[in-house]
């Protein structure tokens, strides 16, 4: 069963430090019904990843139907014209693959990592469900229960379950599309009907509002032929207009405090609006994130963890539901930490501000910027090297650039755009975007009395 192939020994080593280490092959096509198709071939392993991205997410769901984009994602596994409930999961599994779907701010995606010989089936399946879910009231009710249990396990029954993403966006954004809870209110989920399902599908799931991406070990001409065969006769429908998700410039600091009945330690999060996606400042912000927040060399880690001991770690980044490359702006750059009760949030903020003030008033040393660039590159490569769903990280980047910048091939300019950032641009960006008046401070008040582990462990020791 073991086949030793030459490919294992032929991997190339990049030795040029300054060169762009990675150029993904990209080819793009548009079918007659408006479906955009992106291919990226990689013959290093006999696998493929197929993804379909619909340009609708939590930001576009209707008022009174919060959580609907996510509920709809679940329904896309409940059957279509040629597949019974959950048959798509069965087909993927019994052909040696893994699948999933996810709902984000601006898109909902469906993807499967499969052995390469299953390309034909994977495209057939995704085309079948692009024709629409075929589901019963019982299936809707079942997935409503499943989604409610998802919200319980991830939010309601878990300490810090809504911290910071749901709580922060509620305060930091003024536009309802951005600020509402995308997991949904239970009452809105209860109100969702089969009519809502059909109308949401008709509005947002047309081929012209979607991107099909295939990466991995396949031949492009063959894949294009299959894509045309299965997808091109899906009726065209006008792509929906995009929602107005604009946020006005924030002019005053906001601060809010929530009691978390399940938490036993206070927590603090600070979120700033970031520059517009694609701008020079956006990439400068990406490097500021590396300098300030990512890794143990980051300035906030050095100050708040190593020097002051306020917390064991500061987490965060750009985009609560992903990273800076797979969402459109508005987005927040957020830092978050849990701390002890004997330290006030204000004491931590004072130390936090001293770090932020430094990058707003002094240009970064070139050495620090160079290191941030290496970290940004490494982080990008790690995204592409996804282990849970091989090929998915690459597919996700390509689909995101196709959706948000109109050209998947722009993925190959990421490193160039980071490299173009100067210390002066970083300082200008920090000055405008890391203003106190551009931020929201969120604190968690623990609702649980201080734990008494001695009592808990009486039996264990």
């Amino acid at each position, binding site marked *: *069963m073991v*086949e*030793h192939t030459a*490919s*294992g*020994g032929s*991997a*190339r*080593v*990049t030795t040029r430090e300054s060169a762009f280490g*990675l150029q993904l092959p990209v080819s793009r096509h548009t079918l007659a019904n408006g479906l955009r198709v992106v291919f990226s071939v990689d013959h*290093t*392993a*006999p696998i493929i990843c197929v993804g379909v991205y619909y340009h609708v997410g939590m930001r576009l769901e209707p008022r009174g139907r919060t959580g609907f984009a996510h509920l709809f994602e679940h329904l896309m596994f409940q059957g279509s*014209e*040629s597949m019974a409930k*959950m048959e798509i*999961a069965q087909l993927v*599994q*019994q052909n*040696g*693959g893994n699948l999933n779907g996810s709902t984000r701010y601006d898109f909902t995606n469906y993807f499967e*990592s499969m052995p390469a*010989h*299953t390309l034909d*089936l994977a495209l*057939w399946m995704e085309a*079948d469900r692009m024709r629409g879910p075929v589901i019963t009231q019982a299936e809707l009710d*079942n997935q*409503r*229960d*499943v989604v409610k249990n998802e919200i*319980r*396990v991830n939010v*309601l029954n878990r300490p810090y379950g809504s911290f910071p993403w749901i709580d922060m966006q509620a305060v930091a954004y003024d536009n309802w599309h951005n600020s509402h809870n995308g997991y949904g209110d239970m009452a809105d989920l209860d109100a969702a009907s089969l009519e809502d399902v059909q109308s949401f599908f008709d509005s947002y799931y047309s081929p012209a509002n979607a991107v099909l991406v295939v990466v991995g070990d396949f031949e492009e001409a063959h894949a294009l032929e299959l894509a045309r065969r299965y997808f091109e*006769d899906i*009726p065209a429908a006008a792509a929906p207009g995009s929602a107005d998700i604009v946020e006005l410039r924030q002019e005053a600091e906001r601060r809010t405090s929530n009691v978390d009945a399940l938490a*036993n330690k206070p927590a603090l999060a600070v979120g700033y609006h970031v520059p517009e996606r694609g701008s020079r400042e956006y990439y400068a912000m990406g490097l500021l994130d590396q300098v300030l927040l990512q890794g*143990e060399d980051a300035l906030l*880690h050095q100050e708040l963890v*190593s020097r002051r*001991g306020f*917390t064991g770690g500061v987490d965060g980044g750009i985009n609560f539901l992903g990273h800076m490359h797979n969402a459109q702006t508005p987005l927040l750059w957020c830092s978050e930490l849990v*701390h*002890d009760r004997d330290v006030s949030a204000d004491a931590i903020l004072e130390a936090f501000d001293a770090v932020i003030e430094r990058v707003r008033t002094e240009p970064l040393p070139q050495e620090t910027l160079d*290191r941030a660039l*290496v970290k940004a590159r*490494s982080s990008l*490569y*790690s995204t592409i*090297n*996804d*282990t849970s769903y091989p090929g998915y990280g690459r597919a996700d980047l390509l689909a995101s650039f196709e959706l948000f910048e109109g050209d998947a091939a722009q993925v190959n300019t990421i490193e160039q755009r980071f490299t173009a950032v100067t210390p002066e641009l970083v300082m200008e960006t920090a000055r405008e975007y890391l203003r106190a008046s551009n931020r929201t401070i969120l604190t968690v008040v623990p609702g*649980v009395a*201080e*734990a008494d*582990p001695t009592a*808990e*462990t009486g039996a*264990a020791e």
Partner: protein
Amino acid sequence: MTTHPRPTLAAPPPARILPRNNQRLANGMRATFVHAGAVPMASVRLVLRTGSADVPANQKWLDRFTHEYLREGTTSLDASSFADTLAGLGGRLTVDADEHTTVLRTEVLAERAPEAIRLLADVARHPHFPASEAERLRNDLRRNLDLALAQPSYLTFAAFRGALYGDTHPYGRVIPNPAAFDGFDATASRAFWEAETGAQRALLLVGGVFDEAAAMDAWRGAFEDWESGPAAASNPPTPATTRSIRLVDRPGSEQSTMYLGRSVPEPTHPDYVPLEVTNSLLGGSFHSRITMNIRETNGYTYSPHAYITSRPQDAYWIEVADVTTNVTGPAIREVFAETERLRAEAPDLEELVGIQNYVAGSFMLRQATPGGILDHLEFLDLHGLDEAYTASYVERVRAVTPDEVRRLAEQYLGTDAMTIAITGDRSVIDAQLAEYGTPST
């Protein structure tokens, strides 16, 4: 609307296993190098055969304390220089640890792999443990314990382990006594690290894209003068063989977090791979019987999953689910009913073949990424398995028969000997649990 006939596929090609370069030094240190993928990154893992089971009972979590202490630099690099240097390679230090394994791990840009190897060697061999940082790290440990004790999953895991292994074995004694943290300091960490590491308990794994000659040179240079060190001790547990229930009361809990499981053969046993197939059919995959039942039919839960977890000479099967509080009893009933049905009736060949394809295919997907390959190599090393296991895996998966699945379920998964641990609202679920026995806390 047009529909297209469902395509039929050719048979899957044989699994492709990438070649491994296995090396050994005179002091007992080993290394394996595997080229995989095209992304210019190298994964470097220093796998040390030491873990929480090596810590004395009255020093529970000294291992975790020590892992945090390792980040405080080496005898030649202080903490911030160490962090800067590693970040400059594109890496950050991750420490993954369990009962018998501590992995110092980083992913760096391809051309920086040799430097990453030398840095990990420096951390493992020459940690500084500065006394000035001990109080802060003790405080972090106390905070982490408090945070863990608020998590239903942690409480349930601890209850399950205590019930399965007994509260005196290291596998069963999960929650530490924070009073012991007061004694954790540089001296304690240094003593633990020196007693429980050394070349004969170390394996370097390098995967991804890298220059092999340079990586091998870096490995030899950094490790060949390391002392062999003391051998690892062994203390196999005696898992429970009868049913018991432990209940952690969490008033007002929206859900019950449940662990249902029991001891099964470990990876060197001939039944292990067929049991993996059995697990995938029963509860270990999205389309498995238990998931289809308690999620897709009944909507009791969002993320039920079953798996087999192993340590040397030890393994258990477990179903984990967070279910709505008012259906706690019914959820257990359905899990048990699916398990007993499989013990009574062999599955259809079609269902089994589908699952065999899934297990074989998932294995192949994992062999397609550097991370997946290195995980597999860690598994082999933990259990003393070699390339023959990898090479024969798919064949063994495909050889399982419907009747064998039934036999394995009957022999190993009887619900009468399941250990049950639940964290939930006792006032609501006590009555629902009556049919499974009397809970202890």
